[in-house]
C-alpha cells in the first residue's frame, strides 16, 4: 500500500492483509494510530476480528478427514447389520436445509460448548456401566469427576459430522475408519462410520482405528487397547496407545489414564498406558499432565515426553520427564495408512466400430436400468436400494438411460445404446450429479461407456459429498479406446467405499481427444441408506413432540 486507505473497502482490504500476516510495517503503524484515534475504524476492526474468531470457531464443522474421505471396512457387511446396535436417530442436517439458518439463534448460547463441549450429564444406565467399568479397573478416583446430578449441557451441534442420538445417550464420536482392526467380541460389533454413544468402550485387540470426536478431535487408537469415549472431547485410555490430533477449537481434549490425566493445549500428542504406567509424548503444541498419585503438574511442549508411574510394593509413584528419543516417537502411529477404494476391472473392449447415431435406433429412455436391472452383477445389490438415474441432475436430467435392448455383441450387458444428453462429444466435459434423497453408504459403483471412433479416451473422475464439500472418491484416469469402458469401483477387502454420501458426481472428460464421441450407457450404484427409513420417520415423530 502506497497510501493510507481512502475508503472503507480499502480499509477492510488492509484488515484482511493484516490478519493474513501480509501487511507491511508501515501499514501496521498507520493502523495502530488509526485504531487509537478513530472510533469508527475501531468498530470495523473489532467486527472484522470477530469474523476471524468466528471462522476459527466454526471451522471445526467443516472438518474433513485428513487422510481421505474414504472409509474402508474390514467388517463383513451382512454380519454387521444382522447384529449391530445401530444408533437410532440420525440427526444430520444437510447444508441446504432451509431450517438451518433459522436455527442459528437457537444455537447461540450452546455455541461455545457445542463446539466441543465436555458433558457432565450422564445417563443413569451409562452411569452404571461406567461405575462398573471403573470398579473393575479400580480407577475409583474418576468417579469423583462424574457428577450425574448436574443438568445436561444443551447440545445442538450443526451440520457436517452428522449427529446421532441413541435412546437417551448422545453419541459423542464416530469410528471413522479401521485398518486391520480386530475387536474383542465382548464389546459388540463395530463398523466404519458408526457413531459411538457416550460411555461406549472400544476394545481393540490389534490393528488401528481412527475415532473422530464431535469436538473435532481425532485419535488413532492402536491395539491392543481399551478406550472409552466419555464425552465429545474426552476419553479414558485404560490401556494401549493413541495419538490425538486436536484442532484449535477442540483444545482442552482430555485423556484420562489410570495414572495420569493429559489435557491437550494444542495440536498433537501420543499417549500410552499399560495400567501402571502412562507415557506421553508431545509432537506439536503443548500438553498439561496431571499425575494422580503425586501432587505434580507438568507442562510439556513439542518434542517433550514424560512418564507417570503408579506406586506398587517396590516403587513409589513418580513422574519422570523422558529424554526425547526417537524410539518414543516411533512407538506411536500418527497417520492411518491410506486404503482407498480400488478401481478394478477397468477395461476396454476393442470392438469393431459399429456405432449407430440415429435417434430412432436408440432404445426409448427409461429408468428401468441401474441397480435393479444389473443382472450381470446379481447378488451385489441384494442389500441395496434402487438408485435411479432419473434422479441425476443436469445435464443428465432425463429419465434413465440404458434400457434392456440388444447390445451388439456386448459381452456382459444386454443393453442398447442410448443417446441425447448421454452423449459427450470431444473436446468436452460432462458432469452428472446425483443427489441422494437421504444419505447413503456406498459399496460399489460401476460405469459403462461406449466410445465412438478410434483413439477415444476418456477421463473418469468420481466425487462424493458427505456434507463437507466435494471430495475425490476415485480418479479412474484414462479409459476407452474404440469400444467400451467398463469401470468398477470397490474396496478390497469388501466394505464401504464411502459413507453418509449426500451427493455423488461423475465427471467424464474428453478434453484430450479430437473428434470423439462417448456414450455413457449405464451407471450402477450399490449401497443402502445410511440408516433405515422407518427410524427416520420415528425421529420425525419425536421431533413433533
Amino acid at each position: 500500500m502506497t497510501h493510507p486507505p481512502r475508503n472503507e473497502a480499502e480499509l477492510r482490504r488492509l484488515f484482511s492483509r493484516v490478519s493474513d500476516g501480509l501487511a507491511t510495517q508501515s501499514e501496521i503503524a498507520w493502523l495502530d494510530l488509526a485504531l487509537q484515534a478513530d472510533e469508527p475504524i475501531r468498530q470495523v476492526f473489532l467486527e472484522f476480528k470477530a469474523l476471524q474468531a468466528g471462522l476459527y470457531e466454526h471451522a471445526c464443522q467443516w472438518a474433513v478427514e485428513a487422510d481421505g474421505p474414504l472409509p474402508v471396512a474390514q467388517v463383513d457387511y451382512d454380519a454387521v447389520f444382522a447384529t449391530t446396535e445401530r444408533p437410532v436417530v440420525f440427526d444430520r442436517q444437510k447444508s441446504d436445509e432451509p431450517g438451518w439458518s433459522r436455527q442459528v439463534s437457537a444455537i447461540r448460547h450452546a455455541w461455545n460448548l457445542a463446539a466441543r463441549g465436555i458433558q457432565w450429564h450422564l445417563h443413569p444406565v451409562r452411569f452404571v456401566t461406567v461405575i462398573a467399568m471403573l470398579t473393575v479397573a479400580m480407577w475409583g478416583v474418576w468417579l469423583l469427576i462424574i457428577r450425574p446430578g448436574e443438568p445436561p449441557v444443551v447440545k445442538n451441534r450443526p451440520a457436517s459430522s452428522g449427529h446421532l442420538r441413541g435412546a437417551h445417550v448422545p453419541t459423542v464420536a464416530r469410528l471413522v475408519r479401521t485398518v486391520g482392526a480386530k475387536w474383542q467380541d465382548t464389546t459388540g460389533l463395530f463398523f466404519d462410520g458408526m457413531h459411538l454413544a457416550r460411555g461406549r468402550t472400544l476394545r481393540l485387540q490389534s490393528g488401528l482405528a481412527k475415532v473422530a470426536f464431535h469436538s473435532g478431535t481425532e485419535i488413532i487408537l492402536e491395539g491392543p487397547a481399551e478406550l472409552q469415549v466419555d464425552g465429545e472431547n474426552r476419553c479414558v485410555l485404560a490401556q494401549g496407545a493413541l495419538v490425538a490430533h486436536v484442532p484449535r477449537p477442540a483444545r482442552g481434549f482430555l485423556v484420562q489414564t489410570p495414572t495420569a490425566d493429559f489435557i491437550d493445549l494444542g495440536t498433537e500428542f501420543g499417549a500410552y498406558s499399560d495400567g501402571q504406567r502412562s507415557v506421553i509424548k508431545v509432537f506439536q503444541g503443548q500438553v498439561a499432565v496431571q499425575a494422580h498419585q503425586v501432587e505434580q503438574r507438568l507442562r510439556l511442549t513439542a518434542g517433550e515426553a514424560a512418564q507417570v508411574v503408579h506406586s506398587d510394593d517396590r516403587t513409589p509413584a513418580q513422574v519422570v520427564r523422558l529424554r526425547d528419543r526417537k524410539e518414543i516417537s516411533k512407538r506411536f502411529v500418527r497417520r492411518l495408512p491410506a486404503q482407498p477404494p480400488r478401481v478394478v476391472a477397468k477395461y476396454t473392449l476393442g470392438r469393431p466400430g459399429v456405432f449407430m447415431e440415429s435417434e430412432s435406433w436408440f432404445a426409448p429412455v427409461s429408468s428401468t436400468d441401474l441397480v435393479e436391472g444389473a443382472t450381470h452383477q446379481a447378488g451385489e445389490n441384494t442389500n441395496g436400494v434402487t438408485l435411479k438415474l432419473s434422479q441425476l441432475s443436469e445435464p443428465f436430467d432425463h429419465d434413465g438411460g440404458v434400457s434392456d435392448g440388444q447390445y451388439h455383441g456386448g459381452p456382459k450387458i444386454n443393453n442398447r445404446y442410448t443417446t441425447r444428453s448421454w452423449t459427450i462429444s470431444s473436446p468436452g466435459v460432462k458432469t452428472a450429479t446425483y443427489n441422494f434423497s437421504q444419505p447413503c453408504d456406498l459399496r460399489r459403483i460401476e460405469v459403462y461407456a461406449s466410445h465412438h471412433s478410434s483413439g477415444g479416451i476418456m477421463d473418469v473422475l468420481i466425487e462424493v459429498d458427505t456434507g463437507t464439500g466435494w471430495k475425490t472418491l476415485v480418479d479412474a484416469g484414462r479409459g476407452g479406446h474404440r469400444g467400451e469402458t467398463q469401470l468398477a469401483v470397490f474396496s478390497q477387502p469388501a466394505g464401504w467405499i464411502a459413507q453418509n454420501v449426500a451427493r455423488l458426481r461423475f465427471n467424464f472428460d474428453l478434453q484430450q481427444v479430437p473428434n470423439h464421441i462417448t456414450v455413457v450407457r449405464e451407471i450402477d450404484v450399490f449401497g443402502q441408506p445410511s440408516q433405515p427409513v422407518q427410524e427416520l420417520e420415528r425421529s420425525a415423530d419425536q421431533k413433533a413432540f
Partner: protein
Amino acid sequence: MSDSQATAEFARLFDASQAQLLRYILNLVPSDADALDLLQETAAALWLKFDQYDREKPFGPWARKFAHYQVLKWRLETARRHEKVATFSLEAIEVLSKEFERHDEVLQSRIDALAGCVEQMSTDDRTLLEQRYWEHVNLESMSTHTGMTPPQISRRLYRIRRQLEACIDRAIATEGVS
C-alpha cells in the same frame, strides 16, 4: 478437590471460555497466526496458575488478564529479539482491550449468525476457508496447493470475508425485524 477433579474442572472452564479468549487475543494482535500462538501460551499459563483461581469469580475475565499479559510479554520479547513481527503499540492494545469488553456481546451475535452464512458459500470458497481456518495452513503452503500467490489468496479471502460480512449484516437485520 482432587487433582483429577481440578484437571477436569480446568478443562471444562477453559473449554467454555476459549472461543471468547481467542476473540480477545485476535483483537490485540495484528496477525492471526500470532494470536493463535498466544492462545496456546495463555492456556498453558492458566493451567499452571489454576490453583490460584478463585472459583467464586467468573473464569472469563480472569483468563483474559492472563491473555492480556501474554500479549504484552510477547510484544516485549519480540522487540528484545529484534524480530520483525508486527505488533500494536501499548496504547492501541489498551484501547482495543477496553473496547472489547464493551462490545463483546454484540460481536458474539455476529459470530452466531456466521454459521448460516458459511453454509451458503461455494465449495471452492469453503475449501479455501477450510485450509485457512481449520488446517491452519499458512498462505505460502496454500499457494502451492492452489497455484495462487499469497497476495492473491489474501485477496480471494478478502472477497469471501466481505461476502460473509454482508451475509451477517443481513441475518442480523432480519433477526432484528422478526
